[in-house]
């Protein structure tokens, strides 16, 4: 079935099947609606009240007619169930050799972990023409992984795995990645954040899927992720640039300011590294490398005074990435 203006681009192998069903239902609905309302309008006109013309009393009904319109629709309904279920089964049962990507939903970010351990935040590389399975769970509330262009959706539930799979049919460009939405309501940051900012509420919890050639994905799996291409120059500069990139991409910026002023919802990063920090419960600690590392991996271990009710999720960054974040933090104070 061809692309329709009512539906998003067809970018997965499921999309044509789903769209066929959608358009079939659409035209069945249009036909039924026109028939029902047409008959209604015709009767209203034809049998409008006129002086001297009385209504013909209803007889005892027509059992044959009643049985007909009770059971004839069943044929259509059985067909709809069957076709819908057929595609659903395909969507539920992933092929044997999928590329697995673990997905973690959290307010209001998506974390993707590839099989080589490399993590991406709010974006993910996806090989084209390859069955890819998302193995998903949430660390806080319900989310839903929704890719309109793929016609797939599945809730992401805390404490439970859920899966979906798809096979992308076209490469994407960097300007037009395939968009992931959160379709299960998951709240918003409280107070004066600008709700249109990325990763501050349910409606901005989006991610970009970059559909790349299979060979590129294989290379990526082998070599892992490093600093992004735009970070060049001396090793230190690359580190700081990478750290800033992580800060931007992982949603750190939703809670942590870097201007030295805003302290909400989380502590500001400027003037943090190497300084003493008062903790909840009265103790204090120097914000050294060990402390920063722990705060990223186990945020609830040592909480800065005044932030006891903030529930930061753990971020499983790799060592080089944590180093880069620390380099970025340092650079803020220079």
């Amino acid at each position, binding site marked *: 079935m061809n692309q329709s203006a009512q539906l998003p681009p067809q970018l997965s192998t499921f999309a044509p099947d789903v769209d066929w069903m959608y358009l079939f239902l659409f035209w069945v*609905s249009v036909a039924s609606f026109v028939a029902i309302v047409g008959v209604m309008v015709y009767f209203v006109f034809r*049998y409008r*009240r006129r002086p001297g013309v*009385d*209504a013909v009393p209803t007889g005892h009904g027509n059992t044959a007619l009643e049985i007909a319109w009770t059971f004839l629709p069943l044929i259509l309904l059985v067909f*709809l169930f069957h076709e819908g279920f057929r595609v659903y089964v395909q969507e539920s049962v992933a092929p044997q050799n999928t590329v697995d990507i673990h997905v973690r939903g959290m307010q209001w970010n998506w974390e993707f972990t590839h099989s080589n351990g490399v993590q991406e935040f709010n974006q993910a590389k996806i090989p084209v023409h390859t069955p890819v399975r998302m193995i998903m769970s949430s660390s806080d509330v319900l989310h839903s992984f929704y890719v309109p262009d793929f016609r797939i959706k599945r809730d992401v539930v805390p*404490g439970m795995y859920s899966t979906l799979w798809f096979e992308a049919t076209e490469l994407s460009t960097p300007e037009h990645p395939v968009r992931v939405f959160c*379709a299960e309501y998951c709240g918003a940051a409280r107070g004066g954040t600008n*709700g249109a900012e990325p990763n501050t509420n349910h409606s901005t919890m989006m991610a970009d899927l970059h559909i790349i050639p299979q060979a590129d994905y294989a290379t990526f799996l082998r070599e892992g992720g490093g600093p992004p291409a735009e970070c060049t120059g001396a090793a230190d500069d690359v580190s700081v640039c990478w750290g800033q990139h992580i800060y931007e991409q992982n949603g750190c910026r939703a809670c942590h300011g870097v201007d030295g002023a805003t302290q909400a919802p989380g502590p500001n990063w400027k003037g943090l590294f190497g300084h003493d920090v008062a903790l909840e419960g009265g103790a204090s600690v120097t914000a050294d490398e060990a402390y920063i590392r722990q705060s990223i991996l186990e945020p609830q271990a040592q909480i800065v005074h005044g932030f006891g009710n903030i529930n930061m999720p753990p971020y499983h960054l790799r060592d080089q990435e944590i180093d880069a974040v620390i380099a970025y933090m340092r650079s803020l104070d220079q």
Partner: protein
Amino acid sequence: MTVEAEAAIHADPHHIPADADYLTYERGWKSWLTTVDHKRIGVMYLISILLAFFAGGVFALILRTELLTPGRTIMEADTYNEMFTLHGAIMVFLFIIPSIPAAIGNFVLPIMLGAKDVAFPKLNLASLYIYWVGAIFTLVAITQGHIDTGWTFYTPYSTRADNSAIWMTIGVFILGFSSILTGLNFIATVHTMRGPGMHWRRLPLFIWGTYATAVIQVLATPVLAITLALLAMEKIVGVGVFDPALGGDPVLFQHFFWFYSHPAVYIMILPGMAIVNEVIATFSRRKIFGYMFIAMSSVALALLGFLVWGHHMFVSGQSEYATMVFSALTFLVAIPSGVKIFNWLATLYQGSISLESPMLYSLAFIALFTIGGLTGLFLGTLSTDIHLHDTYFVVAHFHYVMVGGTVFGFLSGLHYWWPKITGRLYDERWARVAFSLVFIGFNVTFLSQFVLGSRGMPRRYYSYLDQFQPLHMTSSGGAYVLGVGFLVMAVMFAKSLKSGEKAGRNPWGSAGYEWQTSPRPHPHNFAEQPVFTRGPYDYHLASERELFTGTDAEWDTHVAKKAEA
């Protein structure tokens, strides 16, 4: 029953003069607050739900205003979330569910039965008080702030410490009991209070509809109550049945919630359908075609409504087996719905149709409910539902059912019985203007949302991609027209109350039983106990006197003229 047992030690009814009417027989606010007259209770419900409807409507307009632009328009994201929660919760629990059964049903059901009152009048008043208490808790929830869970209260978002869901859940818990007691009362009334000659095959279809509704109210609402009780205990003492942080299962909450809330859809739509039956018969001057099939389709819908709740959970992570069973059963719901629509069309055939405002709303109901039902097929079919679930398509679909269905049915009933309730007529021209605005505004608002949804716009979004803006602006524009339509209607009804022409006993010329009592009914509904010798739609058996549309004085002149001739 203990409540009515209390009333058991009652003296004989005081003698009430035959020309008394229920509004003026007793006076003063005390007489209203202590009344056990189902008609007065119905009127108090009517006022209460209209206030709730107004509040819910204002929230809707605020939402649509915010959605005019992709980013911030007038409020922050968390405020927006509170607004749609309040819109949903108020509209569902304070308006739609009690709207037709508790307000209109209370008023007309016993009259149609030829009963003096419902079976348990004191319980009926208690239901109203319980409704008010529930409403107060809801107001408290608003003032406590941060009730931003959505009307579905999904865990674990709702069990987090920083929202006031506790007040809202207690409020809805209480409202649930109001609904249960109303349903219980109606079932007992239909079974035991039918007047002489009123056997089951003569029951007006409005009663069949409210009866089926009452069955759902009694069987489904308690599950909502225990769900909310568990949710409240989760928040207060951390019982941990639904919260994964304590070892519970959030998907289980959805089963609990939808075991009630899907049948609740039929609590909302069945009474709307019930009103359409009455109105179509009256304005076609014809007995409803396939009476027994329509009656049984109501009961079938009520029972089938319990078998399909899992279609709200196709993508929730429930097992594939459950999904399969729920999808298959969901399609069955289409059958009785279709039966109703076909029978209504067959009733119009060879009728004598006039298009006064109640009929306009009922015909609009048929058209809009058809759209609501047909788009339901998209959501019952698994492959398309996966794409459309939790998008604006769903929002549009259920608004076509809830507003295009229930609210249009409610408005149809309100216009239809307005003369019986108030004893006055309203200005038909302005009623039609209001109807046109509401009809056009509604369709513009929600047709555009179907397209938004199928293009992939998820629901409950504060901001959205730029590409969706034209459709969002169209939708908001429609909402404003809808709002103006309701405003016009409110003014029209207010004018009718103040200076409307006095109505005769039967301004529409209906053969329905409730039109045979005085314009504003006697406190005991009929000054003398009626005996029903024909069905409620038997126009060919009704006397000229029964179908006469003018006042009693006009009838006397009419008779005198005839005698002269």
